[in-house]
């Protein structure tokens, strides 16, 4: 899927989240609705094609983040692994899990793994991984929480909101001009 298409879909998701909030909140105030659009509780659930187990790969098998998120240290975007990457190890079953059987099937059929975005920012925000991971030397968990220690994709994530970015920038004396992040 092209970047534009995924961004557009992302926007639709956000709108859907807002709509859900609207229904749930009923006659609540505008303030509550605005919160609803942001609040993790109101975010629509994400269903991944495979229930990926970060802890197994990262902690038990000691595979580094850059093996699968190839460009996290070298580009603005971090990248998600495609089926070929998984096929490097999973053409034959490595264990006995049902989820892995499903994966092996998919890899044999050549089905693409269309991972749904979790942490995506709106299109009007510029964010760079290499800047934060290399230049600023930040740990992934500062922004992504304990995702590397989860055994299944988070159903709902707490995304970074502008205040998360700006409050750290203030602390670290990094620019908070609108033009730094907005585009």
């Amino acid at each position, binding site marked *: 899927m*092209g*970047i*534009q298409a995924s*961004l557009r879909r992302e926007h639709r998701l956000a709108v859907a989240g807002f709509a859900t909030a609207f229904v749930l909140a009923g006659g609540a105030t505008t303030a509550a609705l605005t919160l609803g659009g942001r609040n993790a509780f109101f975010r629509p659930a994400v269903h991944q094609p495979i229930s990926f187990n970060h802890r197994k790969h990262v902690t038990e098998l000691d595979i580094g983040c850059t093996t699968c998120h190839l460009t996290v240290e*070298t580009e*603005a975007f971090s990248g998600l692994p495609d089926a070929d990457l998984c096929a490097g190890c999973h053409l034959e079953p490595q264990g006995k899990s049902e989820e892995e059987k499903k994966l092996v099937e998919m890899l044999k059929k050549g089905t693409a793994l269309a991972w749904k975005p979790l942490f995506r920012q*709106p*299109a*009007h925000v*510029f964010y*760079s991984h*290499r*800047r934060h991971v*290399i*230049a600023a030397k930040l740990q992934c968990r500062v922004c992504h929480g304990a995702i590397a220690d989860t055994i299944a994709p988070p159903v709902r994530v707490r995304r970074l909101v502008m205040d998360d970015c700006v409050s750290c920038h203030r602390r670290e004396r990094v*620019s908070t*001009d*609108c*033009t*730094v992040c*907005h*585009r």
Partner: protein
Amino acid sequence: MARWGMVIDLDRCTACQACVVACQVENNVAPPSAEQATRGRAISWLRLVPFKESEHGTRPGLRLVPLPCMQCDRPPCTKVCPVQATQIDKEGLVAQVYPRCIGCRYCTTACPYTVRHFNWERPEWPEPMAEGLNPDVSVRPRGVVEKCTFCHHRLQRAKDKAAAESRPLREGDYVPACVETCPAGAMVFGDLDDPRSAVVRLSESPRAFRLLEELGTRPKVIYLSKGEWGGTV
């Protein structure tokens, strides 16, 4: 800290409009429908505007002048914005934060250069073009104001690249699409606070002038033109 500015040499400009096209494509500015154009609702961040030359000039007739946002050092538009959706940043860029904009259009009215545009409708592209939008520039929704940004998304990229290479930003790292495209070499871009930059050298030329300088807006787009015409715009 840099203070970004542009020099446009009207004696070199052939009015070919390559800059206009480059701008349109770079910044995801949708081509207007015939109806929008008729109603004066076409959006264009960089236009070629006809100005009448002095009767006594050596070249009578019309002169087409490329007109981007002047990125004023004292912008009249930012002062009237009730929600601070438009602000001038530390490097002199006059930014428009679309999600913040409430569409009141005070700024379009305040701008003496008429380079601000309101999105009366949701932008639409013909099929093949819709697939080729620039992901570095967000598509503006209906109901907000937009204008030339000096392609500041290119500055974001340039700074990110320089930081990755652990070096400061160099002249030429950050150049807007129009300047990059100009086949006549009539457009030059750079840091107006760097005495060694080409824009500073050119802006000190006797041919240099700014549009509507008398309003005190202090534009950072500087034009060059020979003869009396220069002063009479």
